[in-house]
């Protein structure tokens, strides 16, 4: 089932939660809506589900306009950030809720209902916990009950709001792998909301990055990471150094450094924001004419890599990550000079 969102906007009081935006989710795709808190990603997800009434725009599920349908009729499975399990019901009853709520004509009989609930509970590996109550489960188990409850109604699309937000790091990674497997098995069109870029890059086929209610960039994790559309995307997907430079005839000038910038088609010569990730710096010899000279201020060992806090005379503070072996070879000391060239960089107009 594909999802088509056209010209959707929503305002809450004075805040424009969503600028008019379009979104297409292909059938069977696993899509992440990524963005800082307050960027409108949850509002977009809730609009698709029918839990928020948008001010403008249409939502199509597999070509059918569902904009005027109530949430009950849309056939979406929604998993809430805090799971919203019914605390007075056992795991079995929670999962059975959607089937029992059907009109009498389409309600499965007792054996069929039991079979279907059991099958879904088996899928989420909770068949041994049928009679437990939500308060007797761990966070990860509750999350899986919430997923089972949404899956049992055989939803056309699955929507997850910060699915791993309330879990600790270890459980989060496990559940992530597991959700990816489950998606590959069920092939159900899935959209999830997250503010964690690692989670989005790791799990999703495609990531849509939102900021201030608008889509900033959409693409595979590689595209977003390697070819960010703006300094914001660059910043949001990982730590970034911003260097003030000048673009002149395909070359970036910072101090005495000259870095080539061949793909400048969309940029006019002049002042630019040069974005380089800490691990994309290479340390070169002092004789290298085009390198940027920086002074080391502090060094720290962060396990597999070394973090160097340095400062450039004209570009300000710079963070550098080096593999630990290279770092010990260089024997860097505070006060020493380092010469840097970027292995990868992105340049944006100021």
């Amino acid at each position, binding site marked *: 089932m594909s999802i088509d969102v056209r010209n959707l906007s929503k305002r809450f009081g004075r805040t424009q939660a969503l600028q008019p935006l379009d979104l297409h989710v292909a059938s069977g795709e696993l899509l992440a809506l990524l963005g800082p808190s307050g960027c409108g990603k949850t509002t977009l997800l809730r609009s698709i*589900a*029918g*839990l928020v009434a948008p001010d403008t725009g249409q939502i199509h599920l597999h070509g059918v306009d569902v904009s005027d349908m*109530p*949430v*009950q009729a849309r056939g*979406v*499975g*929604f998993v*809430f950030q*805090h799971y*919203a*399990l*019914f*605390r*007075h019901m056992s795991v079995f009853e929670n999962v059975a*809720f*959607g089937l029992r*709520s*059907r009109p009498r004509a389409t309600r499965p009989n007792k054996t069929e209902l039991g079979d279907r609930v059991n099958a879904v509970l088996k899928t989420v590996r909770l068949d041994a916990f049928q009679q437990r109550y*939500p*308060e007797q489960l761990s966070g990860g188990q*509750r999350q899986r009950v919430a997923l089972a*409850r*949404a899956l049992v*109604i055989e939803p056309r699309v699955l929507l997850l709001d910060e699915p791993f937000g309330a879990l600790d790091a270890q459980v989060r990674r496990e559940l992530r792998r597991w959700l990816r497997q489950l998606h590959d098995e069920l092939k159900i069109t899935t959209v999830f909301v997250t503010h964690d870029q690692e989670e989005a890059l790791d799990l999703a086929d495609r990531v849509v990055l939102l900021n201030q209610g608008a889509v900033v960039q959409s693409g595979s994790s590689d595209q977003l990471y390697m070819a960010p559309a703006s300094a914001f995307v660059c910043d949001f997907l990982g730590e970034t150094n911003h260097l003030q430079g000048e673009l002149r005839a395909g070359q970036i000038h910072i101090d005495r450094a000259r870095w080539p910038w061949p793909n400048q088609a969309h940029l006019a010569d002049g002042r630019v924001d040069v974005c380089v990730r800490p691990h994309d710096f290479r340390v070169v010899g002092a004789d290298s004419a085009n390198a940027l000279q920086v002074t080391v201020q502090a060094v720290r060992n962060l396990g597999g890599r070394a973090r160097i806090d340095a400062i450039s005379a004209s570009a300000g503070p710079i963070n550098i990550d080096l593999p630990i072996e290279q770092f010990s070879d260089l024997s860097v000391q505070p006060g020493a000079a380092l010469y840097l060239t970027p292995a990868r960089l992105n340049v944006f107009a100021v």
Partner: protein
Amino acid sequence: MRAHQLQHKLGKWLLISIAVLFLGCFLLLPLVLVLVSALSKGLDVYWAALSEPDALSALQLTLLVAAISVPLNLVFGVAASWAIAKFQFRGRSLLITLIDLPFAVSPVISGLVFVLLFGAQGLFGPWLAEHDVRILFALPGIVLATVFVTFPFVARELIPLMQAQGRDDEEAALSLGASGWQTFRRVTLPNIKWGLMYGVLLCNARAMGEFGAVSVVSGHIRGRTNTLPLHVEILYNEYQFVAAFAVASVLALLALLTLILKRIVETRVAHSLNRGAHA
């Protein structure tokens, strides 16, 4: 034992003694006195005072008024707290203030409001007289006054509970295909069950015991518009002390029963709140 520990202990016992003494003098002693006075002329007299027709009709009226006003306030209370706790709308804070109004206003004033509205010289008085509808000095007036005075109990109990629980559970139920009514019956109601019970008990206690507002609108017609509290007052004013205390003891008994039930429900409310915080 060190000096400051001794002081600490002394302080503790002093505070406890004061509290117990105070409660004993002002709550327990009167209660015991009511029972003792009621039974001072023997069980026969006690029984006679209760089985006298006017007393019976007062008891009947009290139960009837409670039976009408408590369900009404149950429905109003749930509706109001649902609206306030789960939705944002214009005038929401005004509604919260209005719900508290009956607590803030003296019951006598509450009664007078209805006299001003439905009395012979009142706003609707002439129209009511024309159409031969009796509200004041009749059952409708007493019910109205009681409903007004006891309105806040259910809503006050439910609003914080429902606010704490949020809307997630209801939205989850709707997304799973449940209708509005199914959601209310199978999700909302079980979530607020014990809080609702608690509010209803308090509401009922007040509905049976209300004096001020009912006194203004009832007209004190013996055997017809006298509730138990009014009947007690009349007996007392006529120097029938034993009978007055006998009837009062029935009210006290109802109150005690309410307190016991309330105690049971209270522990359940605390329990369900705890579960709410964890689940």
